């Protein structure tokens, strides 16, 4: 306890800046100066009036001049202090000046006492003694803030006077001369005590100011922190409400489960999906309630492995049973909530009913399969009949009729191509396309593609040529499918070539891969079309499609096929106009 007080006091002392305390004392001293100056002047005038009848009237004049000069100088000093710019930094200097002025004031009175006391009658002597006592006593009030200054001031008054008393030759005066120093010491003692009281007062004030400052700074900081905390709390509450709202309004079922799979919380979508009111599920095991024993995908073992891994898990097809016994197939996404110590706090399960989606997928597959057969069979008859007519084996046909039957055959073929392309792309996207990889000599395949497509190109009055040849390159591909890609690229190039143009196929090797590039001198790929050229049903110019045929699926199929054969497809502008469509495949071997 004591120690606590002591340390508090120390900190009080330390927290009061001594420079500020000194400045305060100096300010206090100067603030008394007008009183001191005026009272000195008035008392001096009174004294001069009372003493005017002495023998030393010239000395009285001289003393009067001294008082006036002193008053002037003290006034200048006072005004100088008032105007000083930095009262704190210069406080010590101003204190010294004040000390000198106090000594001068005291000495002026001491001079008066020493000169006028012996030269006057008894009455005036009493008056002078009384005056001096008042000045010494009153000085305490004026200079108490600095006891040394007071000591100087009082010494200036009393030492000359005491000297006169002691040397006057009067026994009574000599006795008084013994008492005066005691009186002096007592007064200085009182001044010293007062000085200490003042000092501690100032120190206390500054310490208090500093404490108040610190306190208000602390208070400000606390207020800021409190505001931040409140803001954070509001944000947490808002995000909590948002989360709750998300779960509440979410179209998919959301359950919060504990580590054992017990339901803690559900949302309305869960009630709709499984037919259980929320309270019936809460507190029960989700797996036991929703997943029939022996059902696929979610059981106790899988749950245990999920909890052990503490990572998110998606179960694409889980058989669930509703409250009314109807089976639904759901996709489960399990998200563990773990704390910093990797402890599982709870699990958020998102459950989506995919029964319908699976049904639709099945229907789509069935539809595609039906499309395949039911559309191809009549097309077989249509195209077959037209081909027989157009081939001329049934006899000559009138020119106009032949023109129309040729149109019919061409468009029948186009419809067939479209069906085939759609089936191809569906197969690829369902991962149902099986590729038969074998070693293929690439240049031979390219030559075969040139031969197979020659008659097609001739329809557009375009020549097909092998460009740069690289014999002996072997790639591991599905021969039939790569031929399909080549045919597609070559027929595209032919369609977009100007009449009389040449389509070239270059085979080259670069950086361990082989590259086949089909070059045309066509109009190039329009800028806005470049990004989606390999998308389904992407065609730059639909008028051109009607004129030249094509399904808009060719490049999309090519891309998928090339990628399925571990290659890449792309295109680039050709120097001198036109476009290169190319694919690159990993090199199996070269024996060139």
């Amino acid at each position, binding site marked *: 306890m004591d120690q606590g007080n002591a340390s508090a006091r120390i900190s009080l002392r330390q927290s009061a800046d001594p420079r500020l305390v000194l400045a305060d004392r100096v300010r206090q001293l100067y603030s008394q100066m007008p009183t001191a100056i005026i009272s000195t002047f008035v008392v001096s005038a009174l004294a001069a009036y009372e003493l005017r009848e002495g023998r030393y009237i010239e000395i009285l004049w001289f003393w009067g001049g001294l008082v006036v000069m002193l008053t002037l100088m003290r006034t200048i000093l006072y005004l100088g202090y008032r105007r000083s710019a930095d009262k704190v930094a210069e406080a010590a200097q101003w204190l010294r000046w004040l000390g000198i002025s106090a000594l001068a004031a005291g000495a002026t009175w001491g001079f008066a006492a020493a000169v006028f006391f012996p030269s006057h009658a008894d009455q005036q002597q009493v008056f002078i003694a009384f005056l001096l006592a008042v000045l010494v006593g009153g000085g305490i009030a004026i200079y108490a803030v600095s006891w040394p200054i007071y000591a100087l001031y009082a010494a200036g008054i009393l030492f000359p006077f005491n000297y006169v008393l002691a040397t006057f030759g009067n026994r009574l005066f000599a006795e008084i001369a013994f008492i005066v120093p005691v009186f002096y010491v007592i007064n200085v003692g009182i001044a010293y005590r007062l000085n200490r009281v003042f000092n501690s007062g100032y120190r206390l004030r500054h310490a208090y100011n500093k404490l108040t400052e610190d306190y208000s700074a602390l208070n400000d900081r606390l207020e800021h922190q409190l505001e931040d905390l409140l803001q954070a709390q509001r944000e947490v509450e808002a995000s909590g409400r948002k989360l709750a709202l998300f779960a509440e309004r979410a179209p998919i079922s959301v359950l919060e489960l504990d580590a054992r799979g017990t339901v803690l919380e559900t949302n309305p979508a869960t009630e709709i999906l499984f037919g259980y009111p929320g309270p019936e599920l809460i507190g029960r095991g989700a797996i036991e309630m929703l997943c029939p024993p022996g059902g696929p995908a979610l059981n106790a073992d899988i749950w245990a492995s999920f909890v052990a891994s503490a990572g998110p898990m998606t179960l694409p097809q889980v058989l669930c049973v509703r409250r009314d016994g109807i089976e639904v197939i759901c996709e489960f996404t399990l998200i563990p909530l773990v704390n910093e110590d990797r402890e599982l706090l709870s699990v958020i399960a998102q459950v989506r009913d995919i029964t319908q989606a699976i049904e639709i997928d099945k229907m789509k597959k069935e539809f595609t399969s039906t499309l395949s057969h039911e559309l191809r069979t009549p097309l077989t*008859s249509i195209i077959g009949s037209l081909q027989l007519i157009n081939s001329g084996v049934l006899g000559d046909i009138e020119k106009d009729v032949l023109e129309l039957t040729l149109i019919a055959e061409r468009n029948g073929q186009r419809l067939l191509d479209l069906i085939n392309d759609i089936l191809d792309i569906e197969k690829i996207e369902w991962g149902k396309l099986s590729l038969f990889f074998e070693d293929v000599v690439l240049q031979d395949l390219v030559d075969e593609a040139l031969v197979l497509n020659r008659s097609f190109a001739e329809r557009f009055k375009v020549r097909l040529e092998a460009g740069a040849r690289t014999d002996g390159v072997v790639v591991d591909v599905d021969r039939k499918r790569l031929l399909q890609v080549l045919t597609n690229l070559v027929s595209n190039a032919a369609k977009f070539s100007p009449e009389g143009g040449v389509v070239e196929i270059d085979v080259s090797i670069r950086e361990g891969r082989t590259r086949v590039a089909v070059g045309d001198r066509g109009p190039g790929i329009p800028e806005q079309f470049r990004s989606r050229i390999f998308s389904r049903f992407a065609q730059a110019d639909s008028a051109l499609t009607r004129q030249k045929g094509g399904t808009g699926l060719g490049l999309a199929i090519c891309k998928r096929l090339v990628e399925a054969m571990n290659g890449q497809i792309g295109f680039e502008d050709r120097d001198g106009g036109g476009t290169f469509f190319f694919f690159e495949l990993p090199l199996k071997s070269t024996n060139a």
Partner: protein
Amino acid sequence: MPAQALNRICYVEDDPDIQRIVRMSVERIGKMTIEVVGDSTKAIEAIRAFKPDLVMLDWMMPLMDGPAVFRAMRGQPDLESVPVVFITAKASQKEMDELRALGVAGTISKPFSPKDLPDQLRAIWHALP
């Protein structure tokens, strides 16, 4: 490669339109003899009676589909060795492989080109052992 040229073909197909087209193609372009059977349940008898060099079977037919006719033929000592070609619009790769393993001579996919059909059949015929 068989010694003699391909001449007699028996075709089992339920669709009359396609029957006619194939008949025209084989007769007019291929200059071969063709016997068309519309009812697949009577296919075995018809084949036995016609004694073709090669049998073409449609895949999808009511009552008895192509693969069933094919299996039935394999069970008959006199028909076992007759080469069989499937014409089909729908067959999974797996089924095709299965049939090839059972000894189908070849497959032609629908829609076929009547102009090219005789050549395709002769190519299969020439490829036979």
